[in-house]
């Protein structure tokens, strides 16, 4: 059983970010970069599946700049057996990422691709579904529980109205939602120890032309602080005056 876990390097999800003054990008000065939190959950899930079944092999992959090595090292420390860095100079959109991942999947033939539901920088929520479509594999997005059986995977997934349970034949693509698990904490020594694990670099295979381009980055219209009310009575009056009660 082989599991592929795609990992994106993203702006620290807890950092306050703003656009550059000229709107040409995001001001990343002094901002840390982290493993996309949903990919960390996917990675944790893969490790738990391996703990149950030691024959599971985990390969992590990141598409991007050389700096993605930092996040791949962390995935190795969490329990991946091997990592692949697909180096791409240009920042790819989700269709572009899906195509690079597709090429790798066709080569490595994993039984399961476990990825994040969305990258917290672009908030696209696209790459996994596009990858599954290109491969013709079944998909289960927003997973909150994953169980492997022989030849299939059973996934409890969150939906707009609650949850549903799907059984997918393998190979399949599954994306992690927040409640799938709580990733383990990896201390720095663990990351240093994982330095002996293999990390392969290779150039992007497809280099697809982008299908979208961001032409402007702006600050959203901000809401400003309104009025403090001193009591529930004052609140009720204010809301009535405002016409929302």
């Amino acid at each position: 059983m082989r599991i592929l876990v795609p990992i994106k390097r993203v702006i620290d999800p807890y950092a306050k970010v703003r656009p550059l003054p000229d709107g040409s990008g995001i001001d990343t000065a002094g901002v840390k970069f982290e493993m996309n939190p949903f990919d960390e959950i996917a990675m944790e899930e893969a490790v738990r599946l391996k703990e149950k079944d030691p024959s599971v092999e985990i390969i992590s992959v990141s598409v991007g700049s050389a700096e993605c090595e930092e996040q791949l090292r962390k995935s190795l420390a969490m329990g991946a057996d091997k990592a692949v860095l697909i180096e791409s100079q240009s920042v790819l959109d989700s269709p572009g990422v899906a195509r690079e991942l597709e090429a790798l999947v066709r080569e490595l033939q994993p039984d399961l691709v476990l990825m994040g539901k969305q990258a917290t920088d672009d908030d696209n929520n696209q790459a996994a579904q596009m990858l599954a479509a290109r491969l013709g594999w079944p998909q289960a997005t927003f997973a909150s529980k994953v169980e492997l059986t022989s030849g299939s995977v059973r996934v409890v997934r969150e939906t707009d109205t609650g949850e549903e349970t799907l059984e997918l034949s393998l190979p399949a693509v599954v994306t992690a939602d927040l409640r799938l698990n709580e990733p383990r904490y990896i201390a720095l020594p663990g990351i240093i120890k994982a330095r002996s694990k293999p990390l392969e670099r290779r150039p992007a295979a497809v280099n697809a032309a982008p299908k979208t381009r961001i032409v402007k980055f702006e600050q959203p219209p901000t809401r400003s602080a309104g009025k403090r009310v001193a009591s529930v009575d004052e609140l009720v009056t204010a809301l009535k005056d405002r016409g929302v009660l």
Partner: protein
Amino acid sequence: MAKLLLIAFQPSDALMGAGFAQDLGLPFDILAVTGQVDVDLGAESILSAGLPDVPPADGMALSLVSVCSGYSHIACVASMRSKDVLGRLAGLLDAAMVTDALGLQSPTLFTRPMVAGSIVATVEVLAEPVVITFRPAGFSKPKRGGSSAIETAALDGATQARRISATGRSGGRPDLSQAKVVVSGGRPLKDAETFERLVGGLADKLGGAVGATRAAVDSGIAANELQVGQTGKIVAPDLYIAAGISGSTQHMAGIKDSKVIVAINKDADAPIFQVADYGLVADLYDALPELTQKVG
């Protein structure tokens, strides 16, 4: 030819999406996957598939491929379902995709939020077709009138997934993403029963929906599907009442389009007060029952 197919997995998607369709300015058809949609929303045709329910994403997306041929734009109101299915459809069509469009400047220029709503990006679409999920709040109220032709559509893609069970929306409360009033609770609500009594009680009095923070959902006091925020539901009610909610960036990302935000928090320095229209520094255990009693 430039034309939009508006996908309605359920009839309310058509109602919520017609404003976007009209604002886009292209001729459009509506695909009604389940149920029947209104004929006066401005569509040229309504393609009615009449499915009893929406199949798993792989089968659903596959059946959409042939229906989508000839359209330059394919769009649906943003929801977990539309992201699941339309992402896959975009993959099958080798299409461009725009998630969570907030507004549009032209049929190839959309604004959308990124990084938990800290950035609004203007996205230029460079390829055709383009698949779009959008948030209705930023688009016009649809003008009604006329009458669309009704045709039938066959959706019969095979799925490789087996649906073993599914839960529907519980209770008689309105749908969070469409509600006019939303009352949300956060971490300090003690347990599920207290949450339901205090937050649910006020919501019911106002005829509103109930929402929650991730902290409340994670600690088991509120159901998953009630989570509001970057990774939960996006709401846009006339009135949003946040009780015992600190106002994290991720939570704010889901409530920014609310007309009026009320914050009830016992910490006068809670960040939520910086964005609330009305702030009440109080213990929610006192304020919520009193408010419930005094409204309506």
